[in-house]
């Protein structure tokens, strides 16, 4: 069902390729959400290559595990992985945000095979994930619902409404990962609107809480696996990440959130910042 054996060298290589291609896609279009996209590489690869039950040839397969990208502005990295998994041709990647594309900046369930829920207005995806998980229980299905939220996104009251709902309804088939890169648009999360102590907050909302290094293959796999054994309540994994990981020019800089690439020089500079550059573009 699409799962692969872990081979560190191969996975490292894959993460670098996916970062490179995602960066190139955004640069080609000329602007977009870079930092919060590429910092998800290891997490999303682990989910799609090692954890989730999926059938790329049958994106609507009823038993598949669901993924809700609640921080919907990070569509580009999801598209790269969906293309790698064969949900659609890699050539589509060159059309990101172009007129008439099926790969819009924010994820759209009616446009892209493999996207389970439309998102982009922050805070809404987690509620939808609760609904999907609840339906799984009602329909006695065994699929699991994964959801990725942002730390900035966690400012939204709706996140905490969903947090109450999920624990109240014992949604142990819901596993949420918070991309804790400590940055949002107007600055660092603790300067904009502090979230700490974040672990304690989720814990007090009735969730099982884990923390992991969001760029460490072993830690990611272990924590997700552990969270999948939790019974009677939903799980939150707080992933410590570095925004725009893999790009020396932009890593952990507020300006990596949304880049503008007005000319070839800027394009070259951003691509040059990538740690690994030896990648063949698939389009």
């Amino acid at each position, binding site marked *: 069902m699409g799962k692969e054996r872990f081979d560190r060298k191969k996975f490292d290589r894959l993460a670098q390729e996916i970062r490179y291609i995602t960066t190139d896609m955004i640069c080609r279009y000329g602007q*977009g959400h870079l930092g919060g996209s590429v910092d998800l590489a290891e997490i999303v690869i682990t989910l799609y290559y090692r954890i989730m039950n999926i059938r790329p040839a049958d994106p609507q397969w009823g038993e598949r595990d669901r993924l809700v990208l609640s921080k919907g502005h990070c569509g580009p990295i999801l598209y790269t992985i969906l293309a790698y998994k064969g949900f659609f041709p890699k050539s589509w990647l060159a059309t990101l945000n172009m*007129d008439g594309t099926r790969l*819009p900046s924010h994820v759209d369930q009616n446009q892209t095979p493999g996207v389970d829920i439309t998102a*982009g*207005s922050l805070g809404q995806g987690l509620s939808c994930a609760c609904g999907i998980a609840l339906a799984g229980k009602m329909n006695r299905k065994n699929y699991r619902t994964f959801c990725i939220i942002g730390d900035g996104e966690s400012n*939204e009251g709706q996140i905490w409404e969903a947090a109450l709902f999920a624990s109240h309804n014992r949604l142990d088939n819901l596993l949420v990962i918070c991309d804790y890169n400590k940055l*949002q*648009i*107007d600055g660092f999360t603790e300067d904009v*609107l502090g979230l700490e102590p974040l672990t304690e907050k989720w814990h007090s909302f009735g969730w099982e809480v884990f923390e992991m290094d969001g760029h460490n293959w072993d830690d990611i796999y272990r924590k997700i696996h552990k969270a999948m054994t939790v019974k009677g309540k939903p799980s939150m994994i707080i992933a410590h990440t570095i925004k725009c990981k893999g790009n020396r020019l932009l890593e952990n800089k507020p300006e990596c959130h949304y880049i503008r690439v007005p000319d070839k020089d800027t394009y070259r500079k951003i691509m040059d910042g990538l740690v690994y550059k030896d990648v063949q573009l698939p389009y």
Partner: protein
Amino acid sequence: MNYHEMEMRAVYAGTLNGLMDENPHVICLEADLGKSSGTVPEVREKHPDNFIECGVCEANMIGIAAGLAKEGKIPFCASFTSFASRRAYDQVSISVGFANNNVKIVGTAPGITNGPNGGTHICFQDLAIMRAMPNMHVYSPCDVYELRSILRFMVKEKQPTYMQLIRVKVGKILDTNYRFNPEKAVILREGSDVTLVSTGYMTQFAYKVANELSSGGISVDLLHYPSVKPFDAETLIQSAKKTGAVVAVENQNIIGGLGGAVCEVLSENYPTRVKRLGIPDRFGEVASEQYFFDKYGFGPEHIARACRDMMKNKVKGNSA
């Protein structure tokens, strides 16, 4: 740099800074889109005590602003039109509209100008839903001079207000002597063949089309509405009496916005044929301006064609 060569968001931030110098009660609130509205870093650095970063919490921001207003502050809350209007609509309805608190809501990147962000961020209904709210005043400036004048007006008048803010540069339409009057449409060109009505972002295109048509022998009465509510009915009725044909164009759904207001006024006062141009009841998508214009037929060439068609039909109608 000439004033009209500035980005609209820079004018927003600069004008707020000036207003804060004059009146310490003016407050700028942001919901993690300050860079996008232009107030970060400009206002945050120049007036740190008058700048409130709320985080990604649009509904909460509106409530905070209502409380501030109740205590005599003059809060300006900005976010993308989608989040400032529809996302926080109940908070705006109750804490601002119904309670009649002096809150200024600034919806940035209206309609197709948010093309790169796509359907979740593009709002084609903010003029309509804000217009349908009692107590709310709804403005959509077309250039930097009008924006500046409207912001000054907003600080003076104690009333709930929603204003669309184009972020990018817009060409010069008005001039430095312009004074905003919400009760009056701005007659940008006088003509007798067809009435063209526009607001906000589309006015620059309507202006260009009106000038071109006029040099081609079609005389256009061009009415720009900086205030969609209150709506200057009298100027429209007089124009319709003169021309007998009306085209309305907006960067919005054709349901309920400017075109809706035009139809309401005319059908009750002076029934006249109206052609509404804009988005024909669709959501947004990631796309360029030209793509939207071509797909939905409301770009300059479509406006020109609609004016010509309305004129032709008028002649036919009269002779029949």
